[in-house]
């Protein structure tokens, strides 16, 4: 560990890991939510996030708007792209009679995958596949536990938790939100209570869209993305959600921190080159000993 003392490294891991994990959590929760409600694994997830980032960057770079407007535009684009995914790809596949129920899964996977690649290609075509970063809203650094931390990193963590908190309030304190949560546990149940499932779906995808947009823009400010990030982003959301238990939002939250810290620890203590490997191994182990995931019901 070079000359850095152990305690310094400890605090560095604690602080950096937290921001990254929060970001993972935000990205994965929506993914978990829509799976719970509509049973859809959306493999265009990464592409949607990247779309949000690139939009925010382009707004700043080409329209020369301020960071706030830029972020807003990014979120809006992520939101719209997500709803398009639902209305163009997912909803038709869920309705169609041409495909047997047991085969719909592979079709939704393939279709969202294709959709994701299309978005990726379009981005590369319009703005090249170079990495893009969003102009941060807050700049400068501050010291936390003696670790020099970019204010932006703290900002990321705070916004993540505000959003997660907001989501929590929404689904636990409002009637509309509660019906969404209920639907994620038992779609049939809400129908019997006179709630239109189709409306729930749209509401869920709308929430998901917002999460995607926000997570994307934050990612763009914090680490930056390129159109190459599409695959890895989807994969990490997918594995976090499986680790937490498909459909369990709280599970995803926990898993995000497990993965986030595991990666950070590996990057610090072993080597940045091996960053993702332990998380993957853990995933395999969990799927052997507890296929349902940490908090999975299905």
């Amino acid at each position, binding site marked *: 560990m070079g000359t850095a003392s152990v305690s310094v490294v400890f605090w560095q891991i604690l602080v950096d890991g937290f921001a990254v994990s929060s970001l993972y959590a935000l990205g994965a929760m929506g993914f978990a939510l829509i799976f719970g409600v509509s049973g859809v694994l959306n493999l265009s997830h990464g592409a949607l996030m990247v779309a949000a980032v690139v939009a925010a960057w382009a707004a700043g770079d080409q329209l020369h708007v301020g960071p706030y407007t830029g972020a807003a535009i990014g979120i809006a684009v992520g939101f719209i792209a997500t709803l398009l995914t639902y209305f163009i790809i997912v909803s038709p596949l869920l309705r169609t009679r041409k495909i047997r129920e047991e085969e719909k899964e592979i079709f939704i996977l393939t279709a969202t995958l294709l959709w994701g690649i299309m978005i990726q290609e379009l981005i590369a075509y319009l703005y090249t*596949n170079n990495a893009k970063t969003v102009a941060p809203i807050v700049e400068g650094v501050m010291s936390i536990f003696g670790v020099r931390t970019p204010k932006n990193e703290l900002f990321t963590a705070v916004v993540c938790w505000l959003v997660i908190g907001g989501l929590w309030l929404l689904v636990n304190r409002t009637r509309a939100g509660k019906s969404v949560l209920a639907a994620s546990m038992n779609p049939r149940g809400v129908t019997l209570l006179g709630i239109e499932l189709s409306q729930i779906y749209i509401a869920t995808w709308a929430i998901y869209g917002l999460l995607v947009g926000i997570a994307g823009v934050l990612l763009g400010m914090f*680490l930056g993305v390129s159109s190459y990030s599409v695959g890895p982003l989807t994969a990490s959301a997918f594995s976090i959600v499986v680790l937490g238990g498909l459909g369990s939002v709280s599970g995803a939250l926990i898993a995000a921190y497990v993965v986030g810290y595991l990666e950070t620890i590996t990057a610090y203590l072993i080597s940045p*080159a091996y960053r993702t490997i332990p998380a993957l191994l853990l995933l395999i182990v969990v799927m052997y000993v507890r296929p349902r995931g940490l908090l999975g019901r299905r």
Partner: protein
Amino acid sequence: MAKLEKRALFAALGASAVALALATPGYAQDSNTFKIGVIAEVQAVAGSSIPQAAQLAADEINAAGGVNGKKIELVTYDNHSSAAESIRAFQRAVNEDHVNAVIASYISEVVLALEPWSGRLKTVMITPGAASDVITQNIAKDYDNLKYTFHGYLTSTSLADSTCAAAKDLLVGQLHMKSAVVMSEDAAWTTPLDAEYLKCLPDAGLNVLDHIRFSPDTTDFTPIFNKIEGEKPDVMITGISHVGVQPTVQWKQQEVPIPMLGVASQATNSSFWNDTNGATEGVLYQAVSGPDVAVTPKTLPFVKAFKAKFGNFPSYAGYTSYDEVYYLADAFKRAGSTDSDKLVTALEATDYVGTIGRIQFKGKDTSNPHALKVGPDTITGLMLQWQDGKQTNLWPANVANGKLRFPKFIKIGSAN
């Protein structure tokens, strides 16, 4: 049933028909042109300049009456940064569009994949941007088959040497720095680069404290910077090409107090300032050319023309591919024929002053044939620094147009 099988038959025949349709050549072979295929990463900033610069050169040459009475014609292919697609493009260029030579790619992976094909299809190929020494080492191993490949850009080793030389003058000479940490992405082109760094940095007076290689798909550089900072070096010597924006932005965000100097391909792009939202202020990078650097009398006119025509500055691979078209034409003139072997012989005799310096190739008996000769009287390379959105050259002194300057979060000598 039989009817259905027939349908299947027609369908399959249809498929072969598609193939046949493709067979009809896109371009009729035209003996009145000297054809150059350009295979590039059109979607990447560094790659997008390659066909543009080449086109500029071709237009100029044609305006001046062409070579041996022939016009130069370019055929461009987008390889989506993929080796497989590049191979397909190369096959198309040779078998389909009957080009006489190919200018291909700034990615070592791609060039290495194409190298055997330029041998198989006996077609001259020059890379305007790949760095890996392996390209020319392969030629040394199997000259007769691979002699058709030429390395139109500095090898990693030369890049390292040029960087060390600059570091010696700027960092040790002016700032009295003593120690460095080498930080490169894990890729074939950086293997020889790092090896050379480890040799030449101590010679330049910089003691190498650590040598960090990270995966090219790293997104979070915080751990790396923290580790390096913990080792208190005076400077970070970089070897990055696949990555660029992300480490730079995070370097600025975390206000890592240690300057970055070295090979950072993406930093050579004029758009890098916007891509990083200005985070690149103070970054030092090695290059063979720069927008306002009069390396040779040809440099500035080229940049001017390029800006006029395409609205932005050329990437580093732009300069080289512009030169390549010229010395290909020159070789073609001297060879007096499009025969590949004659072209190779002619190219080996190239002695041409381009935008990046004086172009000469190393001979077949050297350890890396067809690599550019480097040195005071051929190509020295430059060391530029991003200052308020401009790429300012600091080294060598004779072509410098600015002074070293760092953002305030950089603490020079604080480390020791």
